[in-house]
């Protein structure tokens, strides 16, 4: 697993996790959670738009790991840990981002007014649909479908295998007869295509605060 190859990161995450109470999960669970520390911190920093050593990023990362450890019993048997923890990270970071905007309304309004090039991250950080987006859900799915159809056949197959069927890189590579690095590249570029399709589907200013 990943924790076997991350000396510094694991040390940092393990030290943080070790400082937390352990109401649930065993030693293996704690180690796996600690191994996700770099990705969790990167997601939080990306959503907040801060450096990884920013105090808010550290606070949110700590909160994510605490929630993951305390909620270990809610993780169903067989459910993968990584998406679950990263989902918590996204949720915590989005909450912190909203809280910061409420606490600094003038800065936020100035940023919204002055931000002509809204980042695609602003469209992706919170997947829960706003009321207007619920009505446009079918249209969004249609655009995603069109973006998928626009991909090359093996790339689309890799996307579907990974994101729909949950198949790993190695089996995808074996099935499609390509190196695993190619699979990673296909997935990365396919996701970018979907993000572009999603950005086209949503008007820049008709977003939630």
């Amino acid at each position, binding site marked *: 697993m990943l924790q076997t190859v*991350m000396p*510094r990161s694991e040390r940092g995450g393990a030290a943080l996790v070790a400082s937390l109470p352990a109401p649930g999960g065993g030693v293996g669970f704690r180690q796996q959670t600690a191994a996700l520390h*770099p990705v969790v911190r990167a997601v939080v920093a990306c959503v907040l738009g801060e450096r990884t050593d920013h105090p808010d990023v550290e606070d949110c990362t700590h909160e994510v790991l605490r929630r993951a450890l305390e909620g270990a019993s809610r993780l169903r048997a067989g459910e993968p840990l990584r998406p679950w923890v990263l989902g918590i990270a996204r949720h915590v970071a989005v909450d912190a981002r909203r809280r910061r905007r409420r606490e600094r309304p003038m800065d936020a309004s100035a940023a919204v007014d002055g931000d002509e090039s809204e980042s695609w991250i602003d469209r992706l950080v919170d997947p829960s649909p706003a009321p207007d987006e619920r009505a446009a859900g079918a249209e969004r799915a249609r655009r995603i479908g069109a973006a998928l159809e626009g991909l090359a056949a093996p790339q689309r197959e890799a996307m579907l295998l990974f994101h729909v069927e949950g198949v790993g890189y190695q089996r995808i590579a074996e099935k499609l007869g390509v190196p695993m690095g190619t699979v990673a590249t296909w997935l*990365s570029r396919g996701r970018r295509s979907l993000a572009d399709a999603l950005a086209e589907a949503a008007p820049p200013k008709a977003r939630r605060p």
Partner: protein
Amino acid sequence: MTTTPQPSPDQALFEPDGHLSEIALTSIADGELAELVGDATKAPSMALTHLERCERCSHRLGEAALLSMTATDLVPAGAAFALAPAAEEAPRVPEGQKTRRPVPVAAIAAATVTAVLTAGPSLIDAMRGLHATITEGIAMAPFLGRLMLALVRAPWGQGPVALAAKVVSALVLVMIGLRVARATPRPGSLQEGGVWEECEDGWSDRVLVGSGRLGGGARRGGAGSRRRARGGTTRRGLERRRSGGVARPRQPPSRRGREAPR
């Protein structure tokens, strides 16, 4: 014999400028780094060590992880659209053509020709005898007039019984006329896709609504039906007209009855 050299793990995970490659970031975000390069090499360790101190790569890792999560959220729904057969989306028929059937021109023409051929001789005979028929009718008119007058003046044609018989026959004729009028199909009728929908006044009082047109009438004579008979002035009907035929959600009758006036 020359073979294309496979890139070493260092070459696969790092770009020439020393930052992590797209492959490395995507595989880390997906938790597939160890699968990609194996645990035996030092490359994964070097990549994660680089992440610790490189702000740019850490930010790109966050982006890659967010993209991966979003794709996992959205791809299943999009795949349903992408993989659905195209035949499911049938071309939309214009609204006016949905209930219009083609005129059977050939059948009408054949029937007309047949009727003319078979009834033609009789029509010619009738035209020849038309003058004599009219003359006979004019000659019989005084006789028929006297006959009708005698019937009216007969003893059984006067008095309350005769008056009641006339009133009853008039009512019967009116009811037959109404029955025929109601049986005639109209736009928005049930035969043409209309639906029954309860009106504002009560669940038992319903109005026939078809394709945005307020039509028909209530079968029961409630207040709403009477207002509609005067021009369709129920509040719900007016709202439906303003909104282009879309009725607002209804409340159950028990709640409507108890609502306090606002």
